[in-house]
C-alpha cells in the first residue's frame, strides 16, 4: 500500500509536468490577451496527430519530430490569432473569445475526424514502453523524458519572460496594455507572438500526451476541461500557479485513482470547485478587479 501511494505520487508529479506545460501556454494566452483559448485541448490533440504522422510516415523519432511540430504549432497559433482572435474587441471580449475558440475547436475536431477517423491512435517509440528502475519503481522512460522536457521548457519560458527584452514587453502587456502601447511596445505583435507561443508549447504536450495515452479527436474535451481547471485553480494568468496547480491536480487524481479509477476524475473538478469556494481568484490569482 505504501509503495502504491508513492508510485501514485510520482506518477502524478511526472504527469503534472506535462499538463503544466500545456496549462502554462493557456494561462500565458489569458494573461497577455484576456482570451480563454478553449481550442487549446484540441490543438494538443492536433499536435499529437502531427507527431504521429511524422513518426509513421517519415519515421522520425518523436523528440526529433518536435523540431518540426513546435514551429508548425507556433505558426498555427499565429494564424488562428490573426484570423479570429485579433478581431475580438470591446467589453465582451473574453466571453466572445470563449465562444470563438470553442468554435475553432469544433472545426478542428471535425477536420481531425475527417482526416483520421474516430479510431484511437497512440505514439510509439522504444522509450514509451521501456522502463528504467528508479528508487525501486519501474518508470517508463517517456514519462521521465517528458517531465524533463517540460521542466526545461518552463524554465525556458521563465528565462524568456524575465531575462529577455521580448519577455519584458510581454509582461508589460500582461499588466497594462494601454501603458505598454504608450511606451512603444507593439502590442499586436506581442499578442500574436504570445498566442503563438501558447499554442507552440502544445506541440510538446501533444507528443508526450500521445505517447502516454491513446487518443482520438474526441480527446480534446477532456483535455481542455482539465487544463481549464488547472489554470483557474492556479489563478488565471499566473504561470507559477499553473505549474503548481497542474502538479497538484494530477497528483491528487493519481492518488485517488488507487481507490477508485472512475471517481478520480471527479476529484479533479471537485478540487477546483472547493478551492474556488474559498479563494474565488484561485491559488495565485490576482484578487480580481471585479469590474468585469
Amino acid at each position, binding site marked *: 500500500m505504501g509503495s502504491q501511494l508513492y508510485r501514485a505520487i510520482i506518477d502524478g508529479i511526472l504527469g503534472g509536468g506535462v499538463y503544466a506545460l500545456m496549462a502554462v501556454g493557456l494561462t500565458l494566452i489569458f494573461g497577455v490577451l484576456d482570451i480563454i483559448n478553449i481550442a487549446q485541448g484540441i490543438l494538443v490533440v492536433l499536435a499529437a496527430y502531427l507527431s504521429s504522422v511524422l513518426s509513421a510516415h517519415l519515421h522520425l523519432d518523436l523528440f526529433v519530430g518536435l523540431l518540426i511540430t513546435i514551429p508548425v504549432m507556433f505558426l498555427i497559433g499565429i494564424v488562428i490569432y490573426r484570423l479570429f482572435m485579433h478581431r*475580438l474587441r470591446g467589453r465582451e471580449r*473574453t466571453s*466572445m473569445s470563449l*465562444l470563438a475558440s470553442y*468554435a475553432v475547436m*469544433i*472545426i478542428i475536431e471535425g477536420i481531425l475526424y475527417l482526416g483520421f477517423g474516430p479510431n484511437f491512435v497512440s505514439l510509439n517509440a522504444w522509450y514509451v514502453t521501456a522502463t528504467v528502475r528508479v528508487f525501486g519503481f519501474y518508470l517508463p522512460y517517456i514519462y521521465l523524458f517528458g517531465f524533463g522536457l517540460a521542466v526545461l521548457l518552463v524554465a525556458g519560458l521563465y528565462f524568456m519572460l524575465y531575462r529577455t527584452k521580448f519577455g519584458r514587453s510581454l509582461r508589460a502587456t500582461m499588466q497594462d496594455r494601454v501603458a505598454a502601447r504608450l511606451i512603444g511596445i507593439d502590442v499586436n505583435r506581442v499578442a500574436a507572438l504570445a498566442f503563438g507561443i501558447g499554442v507552440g508549447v502544445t506541440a510538446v504536450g501533444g507528443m508526450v500526451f500521445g505517447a502516454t495515452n491513446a487518443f482520438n479527436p474526441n480527446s480534446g474535451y477532456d483535455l481542455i476541461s482539465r487544463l481549464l*481547471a488547472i489554470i483557474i485553480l492556479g489563478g488565471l494568468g499566473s504561470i507559477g500557479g499553473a505549474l503548481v496547480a497542474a502538479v497538484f491536480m494530477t497528483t491528487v487524481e493519481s492518488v485517488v485513482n488507487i481507490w477508485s479509477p472512475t471517481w478520480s476524475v471527479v476529484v479533479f473538478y471537485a478540487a477546483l*470547485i472547493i478551492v474556488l469556494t474559498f479563494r474565488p481568484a484561485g491559488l495565485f490569482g490576482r484578487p*480580481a478587479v471585479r469590474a468585469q
Partner: protein
Amino acid sequence: MSLPPALRWGSVAALLAVAAVFPLVFTSELVTQIAVDTLIFAGAAAAWNIFSGYSGYISLGHAVFFGAGAYTAGVAAQDWQISGSAEFLLLPLAAAVAAVIAVPFGLIALRVRRHTFVVVTIAVFFIFQLMAFNLAVTGGSVGINAPFLGWDPATYNNPFYYLALIIAVGTTALSWLIRRSRFGLQLRAIRDDEDRARGLGVRVMRVKLTAFIISAVVMGLVGALWFFFIVQVLPQYGFDPLLDLSVALMAFLGGLGRVAGPVLGALILEPGQQYLTLHIGNSYLSEIILGALFLLVILFLPRGIIPFLEERVTAWRGRAPRAPDTVPASPAGEQPAQAARRGTS
C-alpha cells in the same frame, strides 16, 4: 424593439397563429419532428438567455439542468412505473429537481469573476456527465428508456409539439416581462457594471441567482420533454457539451440579451442543422460547418441579427450618428447637451 407597437404585436399574433396550426397543416412526421426539436431548442435558448444574456455571465454548463431534467423524468417514470401520457405529469418534478441543483451550483459559481464562472460551469457539467456514466441509478452508459406511448404514428408528434410550443412561448413571454421589469433592469445593470450596481444598492447575488434558477427550471422542463420525445436518455446526450454551444449560438445569432433573439436563432439554426445532417450525412462535416458558422457570427455579427437589423433600420431612417466619445470632448459632441438645455433635441 424599435418597431411600432401595432406592427410588433401584430407580427407576434401572426406568428402564434401560424405556430398553432402548423402541425395540422404540415402533417409530415419529419417536418413536425424538426419543429418539435426547434421548439425545444427555442425554449432552451430563451431560458439560457434569461440568465446568460441578461446578466452577461456566459454559462456553458446549462446542459446540467437539461440532463438532470431528462434523468429525473426517466428515473421517476421507471421507479414509479408511469406509463402513457401520465408521464407528462413528471415535467414539474424535473423542473423542481433542476431548481434544487441550481441553488448550490449558483451559490458557488456566481461568486467568481466571469471568466472563471464559465470554467466552473464546464467543470460542474463534466462532473454531472461523469456521474451519469457511472452511477447505477442513471443506468450507466446504457441510459434510461422512456415509457412506451402507443399513440397513432401520424399524430404522434403533435402533443410534443404543443407542449414544446407552450414552453417556448411561455419562456419568451417571461423573458419579455423580465426585461421590462425592475428585476431585469438590475440584471442588465449587473451585466454592464456589477460593482457599480452593487454600490447603488442592487442585491447582486440575489438577482443573479434568481435568474440562474429560472433558467435552470426551464432547462429542466425542456430536458424532460426531450427525453419523452426521443424515448431515451444516454449520458453523452443528456449531458452534451454541444447543447450549450448550440443554445449559446442561437442566442448570440438572434441577439444576446434580446427577447426574440434566442427564438430567432433557434428558428434559423435548428432546422438548418437538421437539414445539413440529412443532406450531408457526414456528421463530422456538419460539425465543421456549425463551428464555422458560429465563428462567422461571432466575428461579423457579434451582437446578433436583431441589433444588426435595428442599426440598419436606424441608419436608413437617417437619424444622427452617435455622438463621438472623445476626451477632451469636442465642441460638436457638446451640442446635444446645450441643445437639450434649450429644449430642442
